[in-house]
């Protein structure tokens, strides 16, 4: 019964959403205030109905209602409650429902908190948002209905379980964050389309768009970091990024979204780069849709695309093409009319932001090309695969000038700057960078070019960011307290990237790996640590059987850690997974994996992954920076009356 309510609510949501797509758009065009105002309540109604639908599916999972096909195929009574709930979006149908729920959440948030938006812009943006939702609702109802029942006589006694690789807290929360990011960019997209229809992009527009973009960016950053972290500790290969199509699918919108954040800043502060910003907004959401498409359609093979079905692919591709090609056609038509106000010299804050924007866009394009290349080659009857060497070769050289410029850019003034004073403030940083390189070369014994580049960039960026912060705050606590949170946000986000770059350099280049057969009692040496395999035991888990190895890690005579990696076989699926044991230190991670028995011993893989925790810390610092910036008072939407007046009276600013 509850399942049928969920299904029905979803159909109702579709009809409300169709109305939301049509009525406010027509109202805004004809100047009918009643029709225009329909957007808000419709968005809330849509949110309520989809939330009911999602709750109904969640209920079916929680009570293990195996008469629902989706539950029977993906859940099991023995599964811990957390994974029963995460099972709702651990499969194709449920994840699409989560997608539209998040879309509706963002729409509802605009309806609730966007009170100071000009009614026309709000109506058009919500209408565009609804058009996207209609596409996805049709997709769910026609090709991926999560509420499909199994005929009564065929209802199984128990479910088929969830992919054991996905039974993991890191992955349970990875898709929701990723989707919050992907779908969050739909706000920037809807506002961009609304602006194209209205033919106006101004500082006020950018001020409304930036917080949504920033929120989406924060979620996407968390989502990517969680996914990478999951791959790192769960797949048991000791790696954290594989340039796999699914990873690229989330990384491309991140790159474009990061560029969008910065170009929207230029629109807000300097009334410039308007067409470019609108273009980026379309591209970012287009790449988010492409991400959904790549994972769901099976056009590209990948380690972890777990739903592949061409019929769905046709639908999503149609949707993607309609959305992206339609909006780019609108862009080609209306874009040239966007007049930029603020002119600027190439050497200026705007200039450096544009420079980095272009590099980031080229990087996104390169990743796109690399990801789609096998497909393009296949269309010409030619088999090819593009591996990490391509991506590293193309991506790294693009990031080097970008990070160098990131160190200098914030020190330059708007409109027109002299490189001289900025560079004079950075001589000290340059000296520290050289010093750090000397230390790396001499003490750590690392002299490879890429190590030098990585460490050099990290120190340079951190130094440049701190010099800017010191100059702005003059290291005076009172000034610091009065600094806008946006400024704090930038400092932290850039510092976070510096930390992450150091981490990636260490993890990528200084890693040590050993694959060997060890018998209990034997000791292996890696990364300056001695790892002794003390024992191997068989241990039962709640829904799996495990073989557990127990290693003692020593540095000299001191015991550093006890590592117990497991190899699990999930009893329902019969699928083995390996649970790596990781001991994290500031200097890096000790990482152990136990494999199959071999003779009297076991195959084990041992890794020393230097500076890996720095990557996660860096991402966290970036996220905190973004969140701080989000709380900047300029963005506190709808709160003060003053801003409502300003928003209504002089939106052109």
């Amino acid at each position: 019964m509850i399942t049928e309510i969920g299904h029905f609510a979803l159909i109702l949501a579709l009809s409300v959403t169709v109305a939301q797509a049509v009525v406010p758009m027509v109202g805004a065009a004809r100047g009918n205030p009643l029709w225009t105002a329909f957007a808000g309540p419709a968005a809330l109604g849509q949110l309520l109905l989809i939330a009911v639908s999602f709750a109904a599916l969640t209920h079916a999972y929680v009570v293990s209602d195996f008469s629902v096909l989706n539950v029977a195929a993906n859940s099991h009574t023995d599964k811990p409650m957390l994974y029963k709930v995460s099972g709702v979006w651990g499969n194709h149908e449920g994840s699409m429902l989560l997608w539209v729920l998040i879309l509706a959440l963002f729409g509802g948030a605009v309806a609730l908190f966007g009170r100071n938006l000009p009614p026309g812009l709000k109506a058009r943006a919500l209408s565009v948002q609804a058009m996207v939702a209609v596409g996805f609702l049709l997709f769910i109802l026609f090709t991926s209905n999560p509420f499909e029942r199994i005929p009564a006589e065929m209802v199984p006694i128990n479910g088929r379980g969830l992919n054991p690789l996905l039974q993991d807290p890191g992955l349970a929360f990875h898709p929701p964050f990723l989707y919050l990011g992907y779908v969050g960019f739909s706000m920037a997209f809807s506002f961009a389309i609304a602006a194209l229809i209205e033919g106006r992009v101004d500082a006020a527009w950018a001020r409304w768009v930036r917080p949504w973009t920033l929120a989406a960016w924060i979620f996407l950053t968390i989502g990517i970091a969680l996914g990478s972290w999951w791959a790192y500790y769960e797949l048991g290969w000791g790696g954290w990024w594989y340039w796999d199509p699914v990873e690229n699918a989330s990384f491309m919108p991140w790159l474009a979204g990061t560029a969008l954040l910065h170009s929207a800043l230029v629109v807000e502060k300097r009334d410039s780069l308007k067409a470019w910003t609108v273009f980026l907004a379309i591209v970012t959401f287009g790449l988010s849709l492409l991400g959904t498409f790549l994972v769901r359609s099976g056009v590209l093979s990948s380690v972890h695309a777990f739903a592949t079905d061409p019929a769905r692919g046709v639908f999503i591709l149609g949707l993607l093409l309609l959305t992206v090609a339609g909006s780019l056609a609108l862009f080609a038509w209306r874009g040239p009319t966007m007049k930029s106000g603020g002119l600027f010299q190439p050497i200026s804050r705007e200039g450096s932001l544009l420079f980095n924007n272009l590099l980031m866009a080229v990087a996104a394009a390169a990743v796109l090309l690399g990801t789609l290349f096998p497909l393009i080659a296949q269309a010409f009857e030619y088999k090819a695969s593009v591996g990490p060497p391509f991506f590293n070769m193309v991506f790294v050289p693009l990031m080097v000038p970008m990070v160098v410029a990131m160190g200098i850019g914030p020190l330059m003034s708007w409109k027109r700057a002299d490189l001289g004073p900025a560079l004079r403030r950075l001589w000290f940083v340059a000296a520290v960078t050289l010093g750090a390189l000397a230390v790396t070369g001499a003490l750590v014994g690392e002299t490879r070019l890429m190590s030098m580049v990585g460490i050099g960039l990290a120190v340079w960026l951190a130094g440049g960011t701190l010099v800017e912060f010191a100059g702005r705050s003059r290291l005076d606590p009172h000034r610091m307290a009065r600094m806008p949170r946006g400024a704090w946000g930038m400092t932290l986000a850039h510092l976070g990237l510096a930390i992450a770059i150091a981490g990636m350099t260490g993890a990528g280049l200084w890693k040590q790996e050993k694959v060997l057969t060890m018998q209990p009692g034997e000791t292996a040496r890696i990364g300056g640590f001695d790892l002794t395999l003390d024992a191997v035991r068989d241990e039962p888990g709640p829904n799996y059987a495990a073989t557990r190895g127990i290693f003692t890690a020593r540095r000299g005579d001191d015991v550093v850690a006890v590592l117990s990696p497991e190899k699990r076989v999930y009893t329902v699926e019969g699928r083995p997974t390996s649970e790596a044991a990781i001991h994290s230190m500031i200097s890096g991670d000790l990482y152990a994996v136990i494999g199959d028995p071999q003779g009297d011993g076991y195959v084990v893989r041992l890794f020393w992954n230097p500076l890996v925790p720095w990557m996660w810390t860096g991402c966290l610092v970036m996220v905190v920076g973004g969140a701080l910036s989000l709380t900047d008072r300029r963005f506190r939407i709808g709160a003060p009356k003053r801003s409502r007046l300003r928003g209504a009276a002089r939106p052109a600013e």
Partner: protein
Amino acid sequence: MQRWIYLVPLIVVLVLGGLFWSQLGKDPHRIDSVLINQAVPPFDLPPIEGRQRGFSSADLLGQVSLVNVFGSWCIACRAEHGFLVRIKANREVPIFGIDWREKDRTAGPAWLARHGDPYTLVGDDPDSKAAIAFGVTGAPESFIVDRQGIIRYKHIGPLTPEVWTETIKPLIEKLKQS
């Protein structure tokens, strides 16, 4: 700015979309080797350390053979290796090895010394010369080559007793008769 620049993204997307559309429904996992029923491309690999002879395409003429691509770095190859040793012991078919992408010249020989050596001839292929000729996509991979040096079958991944008895062995028997 020129108006036509605004049209470029639209055109790019339409072209890409067309490509996508044409590729939907094709299984990306299926890799048809273009080399099936083609002669083995000529190659000549040097021996691995400790062996006198290398392995060249001429060695495949005159008998039905199994060509196996392996590497000491490849974990799946170790899983398969015991089975190859058994095939060798049963004298079912001569096995030729391509020791692929070893970082260290001693790694392959040491690995064979430890796990047994089923290969009639082994060629050292650190920079993928023969692997590219065979269109290898990963290790392990195995090929059945007939008396005339024509590739008749390609198996991706470790050989298993099932694949062997159901597919490969009957094929070898058939090729031996013809």
